[in-house]
């Protein structure tokens, strides 16, 4: 039982903090967002250079086989500096989905060196966040498959070159690889309030490559999404930490009625509750990440508990950070509102609190 980073993990954390402080300094967020394309490209290039894109890819897949705690060390820095990156979808989720299939070797190599990006389409209209709700139909056999259906939301999928999507064959839920420029595929692209860019897919007879065994995809999808969730938990913790630190700073320096507002007891107690929320969130982030290797039912239970609680704590900290800052907290000119917006979207991504409370209650009902 031990909650310390290894030396290597501490180096990863340091370099994530350095990258964030260099490219995404919190002091002038709005100016940075005007150079969004340039900065995200430089971010991606540096991530490739640092080997981060290779890190979560399994050694057997030609990657570095980094652990979930390694990813956590990076993601806390991503959250602390609010780096708007598609790292989780591209470098954590997709490699976990396609791992072990030679048909995905080129894709993984391209992800690892940063020459292509991928994202995963796993949610459909009318299915909520249920990964087992798949109406998209796959017909074909061997290496020749055609998909028809819809994917409501592809997290961080707007700039993807490849999509990994679920579809139903006669054997059941299966995974397929689709090129973003494939004929018959319509990609709608959206920006969210936190600057992340997502996609919605319509597939009309799109040619696709089967990944893994037909009909056996759901357990793998569940595990891959749980890994993505854990990366997001660490990001949420980093963001909460930064939002709390900025708020404490503000409480100590901002004066009203002739005194620092941090001397008002009601604000002090609020800050304490934010601090406790951060401790809870950090605890659950560790707990879930260290539980990824447990048997599926137990893993799902812990990951869902963590996703639900970190969502609640993150929203609390984000909202109170805005509230305690007053008007300037609501403005976009400080970093504070951006932290709240990221917390709001992290809460939605890969399943809301409601969804994960339900999954916690009955892990056996949802998925294998």
């Amino acid at each position: 039982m031990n909650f310390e980073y290894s030396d290597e993990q501490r180096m990863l954390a340091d370099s994530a903090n350095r990258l964030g402080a260099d490219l995404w300094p919190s002091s002038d967020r709005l100016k940075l967002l005007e150079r969004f394309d340039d900065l995200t490209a430089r971010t991606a290039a540096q991530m490739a250079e640092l080997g981060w894109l290779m890190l979560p890819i399994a050694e057997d897949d030609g990657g570095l086989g980094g652990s979930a705690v390694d990813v956590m060390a990076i993601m806390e820095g991503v959250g602390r500096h609010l780096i708007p990156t598609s790292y989780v979808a591209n470098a954590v989720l997709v490699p976990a989905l396609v791992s072990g299939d030679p048909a995905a070797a080129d894709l993984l190599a391209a992800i690892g060196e940063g020459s292509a990006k991928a994202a995963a389409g796993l949610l459909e209209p009318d299915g909520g966040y249920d990964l087992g709700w798949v109406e998209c139909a796959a017909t074909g056999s061997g290496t020749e498959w055609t998909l028809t259906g819809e994917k409501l939301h592809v997290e961080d999928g707007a700039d993807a070159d490849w999509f990994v999507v679920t579809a139903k064959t006669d054997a059941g839920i299966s995974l397929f690889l689709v090129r973003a420029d494939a004929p018959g595929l319509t990609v709608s692209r959206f920006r969210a309030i936190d600057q992340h860019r997502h996609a919605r897919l319509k597939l009309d007879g799109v040619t696709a490559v089967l990944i893994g065994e037909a009909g056996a995809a759901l357990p793998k999808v569940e595990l891959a999404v749980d890994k993505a969730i854990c990366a997001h938990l660490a990001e949420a913790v980093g963001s909460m930490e930064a939002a709390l630190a900025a708020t404490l700073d503000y409480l100590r320096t901002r004066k009203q009625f002739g005194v620092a507002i941090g001397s008002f007891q009601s604000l002090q107690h609020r800050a304490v509750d934010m601090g406790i929320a951060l401790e809870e969130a950090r605890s659950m982030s560790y707990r879930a990440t260290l539980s990824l290797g447990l048997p599926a039912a137990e893993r799902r239970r812990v990951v869902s508990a963590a996703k639900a609680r970190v969502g609640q704590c993150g929203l609390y900290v984000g909202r109170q950070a805005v509230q305690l800052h007053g008007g300037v907290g609501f403005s976009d000119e400080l970093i504070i509102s951006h932290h709240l917006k990221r917390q709001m979207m992290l809460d939605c991504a890969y399943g809301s609190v409601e969804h994960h409370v339900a999954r916690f209650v009955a892990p056996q009902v949802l998925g294998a």
Partner: protein
Amino acid sequence: MDLDFTPAELAFRDEVRAFFAKTVPAEWLTRVRAGLRLEPAELIAYQKALAAKGWGAPTWPVEYGGPGWTPAQNYIFESESARAGAPIQFHQGLELIGPIIFTYGSQELKDRYLPGIINADDWWCQGYSEPGAGSDLASLRTTAVRDGDHYVLNGQKMWTSYAQVASHMFVLARTSQEPKRQQGISLLLVDMKTPGIAIRKIETMDEKYTTNEVFLDDVRVPVTNLVGTEGKGWEYGKVLLDRERMVCSATAIHLPQVLDGVRDAARARKIGGVPLIETPAFAAQLAQLEIEAMALETMVLRLLADLASGADSGPRGSMVKLRWSDLYQRATALWMDALGPEAAHFRALEGEGPADMPYGMQGALYSRVTSIYGGSSEIQHNIIARRALGL
């Protein structure tokens, strides 16, 4: 004790209902339901329609152009407005400066400015807050120095909503330095076309352009535009703060619109093929909000009944403000839940799909400021502790 309306009030209700049925365009509904403000041009058109009917200033006395309604009529008007999906009237002229002008202003100011407020010929904005004076307004530093027939204003105002479209601004400024910080503050009416006024947009987290910093650099205002007595502006200002909270009763009456929005969103979304609204967990959350909204509505009814009987409502306005902002925030958060994964589709990156703006999402963002503006929730707690509880 009863909740009944008189026959005359019921007849009035029918008249109001008919008016709204023909006045409110359907395309306002989505935004109004999310608690969002309409565009200035739309609000002006709405105000002009009300004014044409004689209902432009529902809370004003008859002599200044009000309809002379009872609080019950005001309640009926607002609740029918909410029922019809009409917006809340833009309040800075009607509820903030208008009542001060007709209470403290000279006859000249009344004649000049009150009709423009009712008819929406003028658009007023408020120059109160400053970078160092938010909740602690008494520490404001903008100065107004007398120079012949003018005051010369210098300083910086903040959180001035709609300064970019306003024709006029009412400004609190220091006309003398007094040991007691609340003294020596005056209230001035300023034409926004006066030289020396510069505006800087403040970007806010809801991505809507509503508020500004306003820089005042040797802005010359005729002394006739002083409201009331020089140096007494703070007292009028306090009345303004009170009225700003009273406005929240109207706002609270419009809360069911937001819940309608949540309900529709939850009907539209399916989970596992079942409409979200039929799932027990969501239904219970929505019910909890509806129940609390019913309690708030009844608090407002009691507030209005007190007004009608001349009883002091004291800090009950603050209570309504607190409860409303809390419920509005929770309702829009639930709305966001109801949007599901599509909550992440805030703006289409290319083209203009129908889904390029989930209004519930924008309401969820905007809602965060409602517990900050007009006296933050913390300040409201202080006020109630002092005034109502004597702590």
